[in-house]
């Protein structure tokens, strides 16, 4: 179907406008799957956009956006255009910064103008980000620009205005959903560095709320949020044992917010040995967590012994080969032996 650049742009703008209070799922269609009798494929909040149409819409958005540099009355248009630009080019820093500036301006104006509903504006911005990072869009879901934009929004505009009746509410209505967005993005793009980086920042930011709170109960509650958060992250890691980013974040959570539970470590090792997993990422996590020494000394040695016994059963080891391979840097060793060697070399005892 033939269309102009304007039509391409307007179609996408209308879709976003009609669904600004929802999380939408966006897919970019290769030309083979382009619809014959419509510009886009739409099914409720799901939209399939032919790549060629997205490109045309982008070019229109680009020229409209850069017009605003000379025309302040064009701001609303520039804002709509910036959405389309970020959809196709998530690293467009200038478009993202424009949106931040606009939100700040709205916030200032909302002090005098009661028509402006800031919580709605913030919610809609988050929904826009949710849509992009959870859609099957390869580059977008890992975009450092978009993930920082989210953090900026949450940290500067959302967190200080939140009020919760209990820690349960804070966890269930904010922390857990945010982590679930990270999980989904991590599933869209495995080892999603910047999604997990966002989670890291978020947890640290939540922790700073302790300092602002004068309610002791609330202080304790914040601490209780980390434990359920750690549990759902641990669960995710066990379902995605090859995701190095997930394991790294779990390690960070265990370190920062709970005394390192022997229980979680043993559970992960049980799981790994039972399923005979060989994932480098899983074993990478195990070797650090055991070697670091936060587990009491006796238990650390027990775990090492357990790994040795597992290795003997699981892998046929020729004694000579073991002695040679234990000193090589590039390993053809099995992952368990590699981990044992690393632990032996690097273990420490914090106790």
């Amino acid at each position: 179907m033939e269309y102009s650049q304007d039509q391409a742009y307007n179609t996408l703008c209308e879709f976003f406008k009609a669904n600004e209070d929802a999380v939408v799922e966006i897919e970019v269609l290769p030309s083979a799957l382009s619809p014959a009798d419509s510009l886009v494929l739409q099914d409720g909040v799901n939209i399939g956009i032919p790549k060629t149409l997205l490109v045309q819409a982008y070019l229109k958005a680009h020229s409209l956006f850069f017009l605003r540099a000379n025309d302040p009355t064009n701001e609303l248009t520039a804002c709509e255009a910036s959405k389309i630009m970020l959809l196709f080019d998530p690293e467009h820093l200038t478009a993202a910064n424009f949106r931040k500036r606009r939100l700040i301006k709205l916030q200032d104006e909302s002090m005098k103008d009661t028509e402006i509903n800031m919580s709605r504006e913030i919610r809609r911005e988050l929904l826009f980000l949710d849509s992009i990072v959870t859609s099957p869009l390869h580059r977008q879901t890992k975009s450092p620009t978009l993930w920082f934009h989210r953090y900026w929004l949450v940290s500067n505009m959302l967190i200080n205005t939140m009020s919760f009746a209990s820690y349960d509410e804070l966890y269930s209505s904010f922390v857990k959903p945010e982590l679930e967005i990270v999980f989904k993005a991590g599933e869209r793009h495995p080892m999603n560095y910047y999604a997990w980086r966002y989670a890291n920042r978020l947890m640290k930011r939540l922790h700073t709320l302790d300092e602002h709170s004068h309610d002791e109960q609330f202080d304790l509650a914040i601490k209780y949020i980390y434990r359920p958060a750690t549990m759902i992250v641990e669960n995710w890691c066990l379902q995605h044992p090859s995701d190095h980013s997930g394991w790294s974040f779990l390690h960070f959570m265990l370190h920062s917010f709970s005394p390192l539970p022997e229980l979680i470590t043993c559970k992960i090792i049980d799981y790994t040995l039972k399923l005979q997993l060989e994932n480098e990422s899983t074993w990478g996590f195990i070797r650090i967590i055991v070697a670091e020494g936060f587990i009491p000394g006796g238990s650390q040695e027990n775990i090492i012994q357990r790994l040795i016994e597992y290795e003997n059963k699981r892998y046929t080891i020729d004694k000579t080969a073991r002695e040679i391979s234990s000193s090589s840097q590039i390993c053809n060793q099995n992952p368990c032996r590699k981990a044992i060697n690393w632990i032996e070399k690097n273990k420490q005892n914090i106790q």
Partner: protein
Amino acid sequence: MSLVSGPGRGGITDDRLPHELRLFVDKHVCYIQSLDTRKDELEYWLTEHLRLSGLYWGLTALHLLGRPDGLPRNEVLDFVMSCMHDNGGFGAAPGHDAHMLYTISAVQILATLDAFGELEERVGGGRQKIGQYIASLQDTTTGTFAGDEWGETDTRFLYGALNALSLLGLLDLVNINQAVEHIQECANFDGGYGTSPGAESHAGQIFTCVAALSIAGRLDLVDRDKLGGWLSERQLKNGGLNGRPEKKEDVCYSWWVASSLAMIGRLHWIDAEKLTKFILNCQDPELGGFADRPGNMVDVFHTVFGIAGLSLVKYAGLVEVDPVYCMPLAVTKRALGKLK
């Protein structure tokens, strides 16, 4: 300088015998020179958000290939200066917001072209302005650096700041000790470094932290064996390097991993011959350029890091690269030497 991918693809066909594997210098030069002529292509506009870095990548690749005059000097300078903001920062392209990343690329280009004099001619006090912009982005509570006024911090920006300030001779504008302390906090138990304290170890971030420590004269703080071990585990059976466990090989890690190893004196912990073969296999021998791995589309980012990787492992005929700066060693020596 466009960052459009293609049209070529990496990957030398199987009928070519291994001993014929070589670096197609002329093809890569033509490829880089042709990039800015592809303005009609749609992706050209999509990569506008990092155009200035693309120029640095293309220019550096040409220098390492021994073709320092491959791009028209005045046009390059004109473009760089058109990206400069009043506050001393540079955007990726005209009209784009200033950011640390593009400011660093600008300084690296100016250093490579030995054009700081011309900078002063065009913008009086330009060097100081740039230095002040960079210095203003240091977070005085943590020692790390933000990318811009919006506050995202990342060790990439810390490294970039030290890189650019050292080339400008303005390192004294920032608190180096505090920056070094921050890097220490980014060290992970697995031997690697992340983008911030507690963040995942990643070869790219490792490069930024180690190179920053090198500029600060504090490589003594690195556990070289532990880090070397982690980095050497990046080499896969096909000789290529990845950036984290279980990731695919990618030619750009020929740079991030190998330069990190070089800086800590452990480059021999990977198999250079296998790596060389892998990198050469990522070339498009007909149209030039390198892809992240054989079979994929080429682009200028992977081109510069593939070539830089080859230079690190002393591939014949290439100009020596400085592992700390990813610039020709002769250029960094000149730039840093002038300041003494």
